[in-house]
């Protein structure tokens, strides 16, 4: 059970727990203000005047978050007050950068309004999740259906013909009637829910140690099954969809959730070994993996080919320096696909080291609040789910930003909330809705003196070892 410092009920026994909705509203207003100010700066710098559409954008964007806030206030009053503002500022900054890139290259079409539309759809999903999932524990009942759904979403692009599923060499898309979605983003959430339910179920067995080797308590051989299955699925994704990112994401999340569930660090070691093995085999066997790694080691050696994008990204970051070129002052459009995969490079170029570091800190706050939720929530399923979802955001950001900045090989993943792309944005709003739901359960007082009518919904105490 959580310690006294992290249990809100222990802090003030017998008194009402503050909902902190006011804090959330204030922070949201701040996030909206930052976004609108940044929009104005972009327009003033690039065109020298403010567009009339800016008013529409401002009203729309404000309305979105006001709506989200009101829904949270009504249906998840004890939710963590930092989650939503973090998401708002990231989404807003993403919209600003996409708009800025729209102006830089008018031929590429206006993507910012489309992204705003996706954000709206995303918030609708956010609201829907809060309304439908009134208790996160209900999700565990649908774990196996979600697993099936997740696997179908994950493997669909591999089965579909390349004309529908392949963009820039990765088979991770479904393109129908002008819309393109990346089902992998939704599969990620489905699978995290499944992992959480499955691991809560099986964690006692998986935590059984058979023998101790070099201070490490190794699990029994027959319990290796699940981790091998996920490993195999990851490899298959890598091979058939040429999607290093999803593969890495999926496996990383599973191993960490396995570790949290069982409290056995031997699972981390086994995971690392499997990863090392898989990576070595993939490197030996597949040309596209080799090419990725070679490009990563020295992007400038492949400047005229596969290294061009990362090289341009590094040029942009280097040119940005400490303070950046200022919004609208740089040339972020020099990086191919800057709006989706390389939006972080655009931010680093125009807002500099300080801006990019600030964005990373916002992610850090988001993730750590999610993990804190996981710490204080009472039921093991909620704990694992919150941990899995939070780590998914962190891991995805690390892999993407690592790729953009040359720390890791480039993957096809998108920066959550910031990057242009409907599926990523909508799916991640769904992810945050789940986190908000769990954090509400975590902070809600067990005793019914605040909302007596909701007694039946109050989570049951689960006594843990």
């Amino acid at each position, binding site marked *: 059970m959580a310690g006294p410092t992290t249990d809100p009920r222990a802090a003030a026994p017998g008194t009402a727990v503050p909902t902190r909705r006011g804090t959330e509203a204030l922070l949201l207003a701040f996030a909206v203000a930052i976004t609108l100010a940044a929009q104005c700066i972009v327009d003033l710098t690039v065109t020298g005047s403010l567009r009339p559409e800016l008013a529409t954008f401002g009203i729309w964007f404000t309305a979105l978050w006001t709506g989200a806030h009101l829904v949270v206030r009504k249906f998840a009053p004890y939710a963590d007050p930092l989650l939503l503002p973090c998401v708002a500022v990231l989404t807003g900054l993403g919209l600003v950068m996409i708009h800025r890139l729209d102006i830089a290259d008018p031929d590429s079409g206006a993507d910012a309004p489309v992204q705003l539309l996706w954000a709206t759809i995303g918030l609708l999903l956010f609201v829907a999740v809060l309304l439908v999932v009134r208790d996160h524990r209900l999700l565990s009942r649908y774990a196996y259906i979600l697993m099936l759904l997740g696997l179908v979403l994950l493997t669909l692009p591999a089965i579909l013909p390349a004309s529908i599923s392949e963009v820039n060499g990765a088979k991770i898309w479904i393109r129908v009637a002008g819309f393109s979605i990346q089902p992998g983003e939704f599969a990620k959430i489905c699978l995290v829910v499944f992992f959480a339910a499955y691991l809560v179920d099986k964690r006692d067995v998986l935590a059984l140690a058979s023998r101790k080797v070099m201070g490490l308590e190794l699990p029994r051989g027959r319990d290796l099954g699940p981790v091998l299955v996920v490993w195999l699925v990851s490899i298959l994704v890598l091979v058939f969809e040429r999607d290093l990112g999803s593969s890495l994401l999926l496996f990383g999340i599973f191993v960490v959730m396995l570790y949290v569930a069982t409290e056995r660090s031997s699972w981390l070691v086994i995971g690392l070994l499997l990863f090392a093995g898989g990576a070595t085999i993939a490197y030996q066997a597949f040309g596209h993996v080799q090419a990725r790694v070679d490009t990563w080691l020295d992007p400038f050696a492949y400047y005229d080919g596969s290294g061009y994008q990362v090289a341009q990204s590094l040029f942009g970051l280097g040119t940005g320096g400490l303070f950046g070129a200022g919004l609208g002052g740089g*040339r972020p459009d020099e990086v191919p696909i800057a709006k989706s995969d390389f939006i972080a490079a655009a931010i680093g170029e125009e807002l500099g080291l300080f801006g990019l570091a600030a964005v990373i800190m916002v992610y850090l706050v988001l993730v750590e609040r999610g993990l804190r939720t996981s710490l204080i929530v009472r039921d093991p399923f909620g704990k694992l789910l919150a941990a899995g979802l939070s780590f998914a955001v962190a891991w995805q950001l690390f892999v993407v930003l690592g790729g953009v900045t040359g720390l890791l090989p480039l993957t096809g993943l998108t920066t959550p909330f910031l990057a242009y792309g409907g599926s990523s944005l909508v799916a991640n709003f769904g992810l945050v809705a789940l986190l908000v739901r769990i954090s509400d359960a975590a902070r809600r007082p067990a005793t019914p003196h605040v909302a007596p009518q909701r007694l039946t919904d109050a989570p049951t105490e689960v006594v843990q070892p």
Partner: protein
Amino acid sequence: MNAPLRRVAISVLVLFTLLIVNINYIQVVRSEELREDGRNTRVLADEYSRERGAIVVAGEPIALSTPTDDRLKYLRQYPQGGLYAAVTGFYSVIYGATGIERAENPLLAGTDDRLFVRRISDLFTGRDPSGGDVVLTLDPAVQQAAMAGLEGQVGAVVALDPSTGAILGLASTPTYDPNLLASHDLDAVREAAAQLEAADPDPRSNQAISQRYAPGSIFKVIVSAAALENGYTPETVVPAPQVFDLPQSDGTLKNFNGSACDPSGQQPLIQALTISCNTAFAQLGIDLGEDAIRDMAEGFGFGREDLAIPLDVATSTLGEIENGDQLARTSIGQQDVQVTPMQAAMIAAAVANDGVLMKPYLVDQLLAPDLTVIDETDPEELSQPISARTAEQLTEMMTSVVTNGSGRAAGIRGIQVAGKTGTAENEGPDHNWFIGFAPADDPQIAVAVFVRNGGGTGGDTSAPIARQVIQAYLDAQEGR
């Protein structure tokens, strides 16, 4: 589950710290390198929106920016075409900048910190920021004579003011017209670049400072300097056999055309240099030893990896010397000895300047946009490889080369020219060298002339070019 959760939270912190450390590395440590990479077109596009400073020689701009009507607001122009291409380099939308355009880019572009105050005031006055001018040390008469002399050849001329190191002429042929690469018509630029690329050698490769070649007999000046510093005098009689037996092998080393240097098989050092006697210098090199030769060469600038004028100068080297055979061949400037024409000129300049080697430099002054001087190069001493006494004796010996020996073609009526020829064997026809300075008693100019695969001798191919360059400079000085 809380203990592993806390560990996961800490791991996330570590991962994000890694990201932030990495962007610090890229955006702070590597920032300048990435910003100034020639392939980074960002800064370039930004720079084209400002009036770039001019590169000036003797009061005339040899590179300047003129306003245009197209997207890039200023076009870079080079009024003299290919005359100064080896110095200015080019300034291209596609291929970035080279030469002075690159080396002095911050000032030309107006981003130099020394223009900071002015940039701030531009911000308030709404004046378009512009770059400063770079004034070069070049002398137009020297540059023109050098280019005219090299016409039709692959080669280079470097002329220095021996007392300061100021570069008076720096020519490389074949040359190219930088205007073609600076054009805003990108297809035309690509085509021009493809043509340059296809040529052999690529005219953009700078023969004067970037390419290294075997020096042949001009290297004997260094061996002579080592000898004089080690107790020899110009009159010391040294062995000069018709054929020199290489100590470590059955091979032999002969004189040019296989002739005898002296019927007696020995001759004074000054005579050996005057007729460029191979066998004498091979023996002399072995007698002096590798260390003496190597130390002397390094004193004259060999092995310097950081020489920038401010264009980077390739490092001249002796190469590894593994045995007596190689030392013998090194002593006559063959084997693995590799020098740039710039290095060759530095040898002549050090002898001319009483043994003191001055650091060569191209940039005389940097001017702010309002033409006030914001920086001026102070001549800098690089080293003193030989004493003034040795320099005097070497001058005497080199004067003899031009008066009585292989360098007669460099002679000018009424003026004493000191010099040394070089004819270097290589895979193709011989390279032809001449280094020298004049007037011998009060040196005003030191030159190195290099003709790649000229096929003749240093004396008949390169010495006349040196004479024209020296003559042009002395005439121009008189006219002023």
